[in-house]
């Protein structure tokens, strides 16, 4: 087995940076679309680490999981966008701070 061209540490760090960016995006953005994209960012950060581990260990299981994640992400986008459209229709806005009806 050939040694990896790029050390795994880089992948992991990149993945972590991407994930933190996604988290921060979700936390700070108010636009539902932007939050949505940040979620996608977190998913893909996870995908990246999975793929990196798969390459590191020469095990295809990680890549298999990535396909599932991509599939589910696609479904999620479909549902999520539909929800956002529905919210927009009722509220004329997609600012998530205005969706605070569940406040205690």
């Amino acid at each position: 087995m050939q040694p990896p061209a790029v050390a795994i540490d880089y992948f992991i760090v990149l993945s972590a940076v991407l994930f933190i960016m996604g988290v921060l995006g979700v936390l700070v953005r108010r636009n539902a679309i932007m939050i949505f994209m940040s979620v996608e960012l977190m998913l893909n950060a996870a995908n990246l680490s999975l793929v990196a581990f798969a390459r590191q260990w020469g095990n295809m299981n990680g890549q298999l999981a990535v396909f599932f994640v991509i599939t589910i992400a696609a479904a999620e986008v479909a549902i999520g966008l539909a929800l956002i459209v529905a919210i927009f229709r009722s509220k004329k806005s997609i600012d998530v701070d205005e969706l605070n009806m569940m406040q205690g």
Partner: protein
Amino acid sequence: METFASLVPLVVIFPAIGLSINLFLGRYLSERVIGAIASGAAGLAFVVSLTMLIAMTGSNYEGFVVNPPILSSFIYIPSAAIDIGWQMRVDTLSLTMMMVVTGIGTLIHIYAIGYMHGDPRFARFFVYLNLFLVFMLVLVTGNNFLVLFVGWEGVGLCSFLLIGFWFDKKKGVGWKNSNAARKAFIVNRVGDFGLLMAIFLMFWTFGTLDFYKPGEVLHIEEKKAAVNDGTVLAGYSEGKEPSKGPMGVFGQTEKWLKEGGHIVNFGPFSLPFETVVTLITLFMLVGVTGKSAQIPLFVWLPDAMAGPTPVSALIHAATMVTAGIYLITRSSVLYHAAPFSSAIVTIVGATTALMAGFVALGQWDIKKVLAYSTVSQLGFMVAAVGLGGYAAGMFHLITHAFFKALLFLGSGSVIHAVEHGHHHVAHEKHAAGHGDGHGGHDDHAEEEEFDPQDMRNMGGLRKKLPLTYALYLIATLALAGIFPLAGFWSKDEILGKAFNAAFNDGKFEGFYALVLLLIAAGFTAFYMWRQIKMVFLGQPRTEAAANAVGTGPVMYLPLVVLGLLTVFGGLMNIPLGVNLFGWPNESLVLWLEHSVPYTKGLEFNLFLALVALAVAGVAILMANSVYSPSPLTARGKDKLEANASTRQAFRLANAKLYWDETYSRLIEQPYNRLSQWLANKLDWEFWHDRFHHTLFRDLYNRLSEFLAKPVDRGAIDQGFNNVGRGVQELGARLRQTQTGYVRTYVFTMLVGVVIVVLILLFPLLRQLLSQ
């Protein structure tokens, strides 16, 4: 004979059928039919008794124990040690009683048809009368003290029902009647306690209550030549060995007395057999004083006259009250073995005879006189059986049944006549206003007080009621003991018995009885002649008496029959030494000795008979002179009261010697006070107020207060409230966290994830740090 003896259940069954028909169908039947059924039932019982009597005279006079077929198997009293079945005994004694009960009973049933005519509860009256016959016949035919006791209580019940029969009369009379009924019942309970104690003692001592076991024969031991003193000794065996099988009460008594030295064990202590027999007989005497109206329990009988007159005649003169004499006669073996008890019996009887005779002197009520006379005559009988004259007692019982029933029925006719005469007068007075004066006898409401039983309201009735007068006169003379009527022979027999006991045996009680009974005989003649004078002789003292209405033949027929019996009844027991055209002597003694051991006949004592006759004759003459020519004015004083020397005595007799008042003071009032004290102090104040209130109510209240306030409201309620409030507060706080902003939730989730990851990574971190 045995075949005829087995007929005996019919004696009880016929009246039972009669009462059942009248009980269930009486309301649909006419008076005539009801009376015919009831009298027929009594008559059939009489015919059965007569059949058995005739069969008995044709046999060897042996007694039989009869198990009523079918009935005996399911009429029985189960108990721990023995099952007491309904066994009946047919012997000369029970047959004698059966004849008296059914014979007199039938006559009085017939009489009552006329007497009770028009009564709204006609059928019920005859149901009670037949029920009485049933129980009385159970009493006299039972072969067992417990069966006897069943009858004993049953006749007491009928007595109660019939005394209070007119409980709904107006103007407080109904109250008086029902009070009299209650008094009779309660006083009899006292006596029944004594009989029950005797029965318990006998059961403990003998292990059985049967008089005789089936097949057990009462052997006549010795029959002396009847001439010397006429003693007939009936004993246990006739030179034979006692039968091996179990024996009844009397057989065992004879055996143990013969063996001697028998001890009865009562657990913690034991008594010699002779003492136990004395105790049994004394307790039995208490029962006798209750039922047969002796001192101290006689007080119910005079009040019992509140019942209809046929009832007074049947139950309270002829039959029920003689149950005590029957009981002693039946238990003659026991009384013979207990001379002390016999002496007490004699003294009680003689004292009662004198006391009641004295009280009868001062009574106004025609039936009260007869009632006290009955008590007095019962005293004669009790004295006789106490002296060992069982046959003499039974003889007087029978003859007394004849003439006292006749007197009561006669007085019933008199009362009937005077009452109707009174109605007649009242109607004539009303006639002007009402136009038609014959609307019936029911409108008592507006009438003034009139007592048809008060002899002061009578007088001169011999013209209105000639036949009643003649018969009443015969009965009066018989009761006074005038030769040759039935009462002469029977009373003379008793006096002779006392004379013998006093002068031949030197017994104190014999002397006591002789003196008292002779005086009582004088009183008897005096008060009876006083009654004749006041009721029948002289001039009518009220309009009611002047207009008295005679009665129909249905009421005369029984009187005539009883009159004949009164005249000829003495023939059944002519004493020895009297030759009456070759008529057999002592028939009754010879007849009874087959079932009553130790019964003794007596030779005729001419001297004593003459003395008794003289006493009676002088008393009648005295009464005649005292109450002649005009006995009394309607509300006037009695001649005896008007006379200064006899005033005190008369008033004492008129007040009935203050027996009721004495009892009231000695027993009733203390009893009432005691029960009031028990009710107010003990029950209410102590038991209710103190005990219940303090212990139960207050304790309960305190406990429930404790449970309610600190426990329920304090601990439980507060506990739950606090939990609720806590949850509320917690919720309010936690609600603050629900901002509704997505980012809050996301941040929370993130923190959670970080914590979880840190926990998961914790082992790895520790490993790294430890390196």
